[in-house]
């Protein structure tokens, strides 16, 4: 019985460490997707002038941030800004965004579609820059601590097993 408890505890510590590490990686991946999304939106507005719904439908696939699919599932009668913000809130845990990422993405949604093409391009550019800063910081942090979490998790699990058995 004691051995089983020790094993479960060790496994839990290990899973927690892996989860912290993988959330950080997932956040980086999603920030990269968002930066790409800004480029796609900008290009589409300039060259095809599709409306926002058509445009988001076009760019949302398995490689796009999860909140875009959430956005498309919400009723069209809801104002765009509310839909955008709600979809971000709903998928923030899945997409592993931090509050500073959400703030930038929500601010982007407020300006989305409400100005002429020049205004939209500037909106994309400004928010892309801000998100790129967050991405760079996340990459630096991941470089420093990403492997640390995994290694610490493994070591502490082994440590627990050794000490308690």
């Amino acid at each position, binding site marked *: 019985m004691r051995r089983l408890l020790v094993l479960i505890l060790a496994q839990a510590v290990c899973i927690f460490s892996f989860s912290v590490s993988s959330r950080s990686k997932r956040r980086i991946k999603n920030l990269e997707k968002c930066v790409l999304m800004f480029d796609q939106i900008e290009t589409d507005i300039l060259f095809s*002038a599709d409306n926002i719904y058509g445009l988001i439908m076009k760019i949302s696939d398995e490689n796009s941030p999860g909140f875009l699919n959430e956005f498309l599932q919400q009723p069209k009668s809801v*104002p765009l800004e509310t839909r955008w913000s709600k979809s971000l809130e709903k998928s923030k845990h899945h997409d592993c965004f931090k509050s500073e990422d959400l703030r930038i993405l929500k601010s982007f949604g407020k300006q989305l*579609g409400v*100005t002429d093409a020049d205004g939209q391009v500037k909106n994309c550019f400004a928010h892309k820059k801000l998100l790129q800063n967050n991405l760079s910081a996340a990459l630096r942090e991941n470089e420093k601590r990403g492997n640390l979490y995994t290694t610490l998790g493994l070591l502490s699990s082994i440590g627990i097993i050794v000490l308690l058995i």
Partner: protein
Amino acid sequence: MKRIEEAISFLPARIYCILKNIKADVVENISEIRIRKDCPIVIKYDGKQFYLDGNSNLLFKSNDHLPVVSGAEVEQSFIRLCEYSVYSHADDIKNGFITLKGGHRVGFSATAVRDGEKILSVKKVSSLNIRIACEYIGCSKELFEIMLHNGFGNVLIAGEPSSGKTTFLRDLARNLSAQGLNVSVIDERQELFGDDTDFQKGHCLDLYSSYPKHLAVQCAIRTMNPDYVVTDEIGDERECKAIIDGINCGVDFAMSIHCKNIDELNSKEIFRRIDSAKKFDYIVFLKGKNDAGTISEIIKANER
């Protein structure tokens, strides 16, 4: 009912409900809906203006108890009218209107954002005028029968604003197409047939939607070999030149122009230029606002 629903779908819930609850027999004959900041909703029904109360009843006179539209509701309507994509309607916005699915035209007044003479965009939208596109099948029958008897030729439809010129042209285009003539319709503002409407077209109608008129006329003549080119509201020099070139190529035109009577028509430079050698075989005057799409007079070339 479907037409009205298409035309009001972008309005905020409160206004939408008031309009949707208007009696069915009235709804069918609404031609205009006016939404103004801090004012009651006004509709044009049977050629007359009415105010709407909170229970969707029609009133001749305004009073202090009528529901008024807030500035935020007008702004929200405008953004929804643009499908939250102002950038994709940039040209229409500069021209002061947006065409909805179904061919309904929504005009608006706002504050212009300018760069010298050039309008870049608009802000602070304060009023909207929704003009319901209607289909009076058969309104051009009288003219069409005369054409069948006397031969086809260039047609000019003249009438004051809201006299039903577009409706008349649409019906004429449909009749010509049903007769087996190849008709190219130049629908710059997507009002005649639009690109997503259920108006009957016949089987021989080619639609140039959203093209600038002068380019579409050249394009149609070069590539579609039309018997007729139908276009709405001729306006500027380039359009006039393209039409004269087209007529000189042997293609017949049906077009419309804003004017009440023959005196006003004769004073129009564009008309004088196109008609320099009695190019119009038929000039049709429409009755006016209260009798949309009804012929008042048909003048043949040999009667002028």
